[in-house]
């Protein structure tokens, strides 16, 4: 039973999967920003995985600051925060859950472990609780 819903455009889904494929076997990460309060992911922003690792991702701290400054000046927020898992399923790991700090964001996980069929799923992570939600592609 899925309680919430992420509504997202097909071209943005495609761009996220393409980024994940391109960086495989390292984890890929990024944000889709949208107008504050709108819950509409509109502006695809791929980020560099500063960890360059197949098992970890982290935005570079200066990239992070620039990203948040830019979103603030445009009155945006991170509607989607995405990253890939390259050898495991598209489900938040314990590490993902313990570090997640944007209770209003949709956390999108993409698994690239299957060469042909990428798994694309969305979750809320609030106070250590993971709730999967429906993904509605428009």
């Amino acid at each position, binding site marked *: 039973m899925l309680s919430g819903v992420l509504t997202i455009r097909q071209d943005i889904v495609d761009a996220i999967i393409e980024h994940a494929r391109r960086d495989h076997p390292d984890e890929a990460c990024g*944000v889709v920003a949208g107008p504050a309060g709108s819950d509409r992911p509109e502006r695809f922003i791929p980020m560099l995985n500063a*960890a360059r690792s197949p098992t970890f991702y982290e935005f570079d701290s*200066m990239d992070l*600051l620039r990203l948040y400054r830019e979103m603030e000046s445009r009155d945006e927020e991170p509607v989607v925060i995405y990253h890939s898992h390259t050898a495991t399923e598209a489900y938040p790991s314990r*590490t*993902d859950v313990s570090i997640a700090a944007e*209770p209003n964001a949709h956390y999108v996980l993409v698994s690239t472990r299957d060469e042909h069929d990428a798994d694309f799923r969305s979750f809320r992570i609030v106070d250590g609780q993971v709730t999967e939600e429906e993904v509605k592609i428009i």
Partner: protein
Amino acid sequence: MAVEVRIPTILRQYTGGAKVVEGGGDTLSALIDDLESRHEGLRDRLIENGELRRFVNIYVNDEDVRFLDGLKTSLSDADSVTVLPAVAGGA
């Protein structure tokens, strides 16, 4: 001495919802103690065992304090401090 501190969404529960608060102190550590006196609980979310938490970033005038003097980074009047949680995770 007044320093402007930008608070991320997840920590605004400690600031009554405020995005920006004011504080004082000669160092980042002193500033955090000062903030704690008015926003109880905030310090624990920033510091663990006397160190800046691994997945919290603090910037002084757009410089990451990890590349300055960490919690000992000195502050001057009208400096601006930004707190941002890391965006990170792992399989």
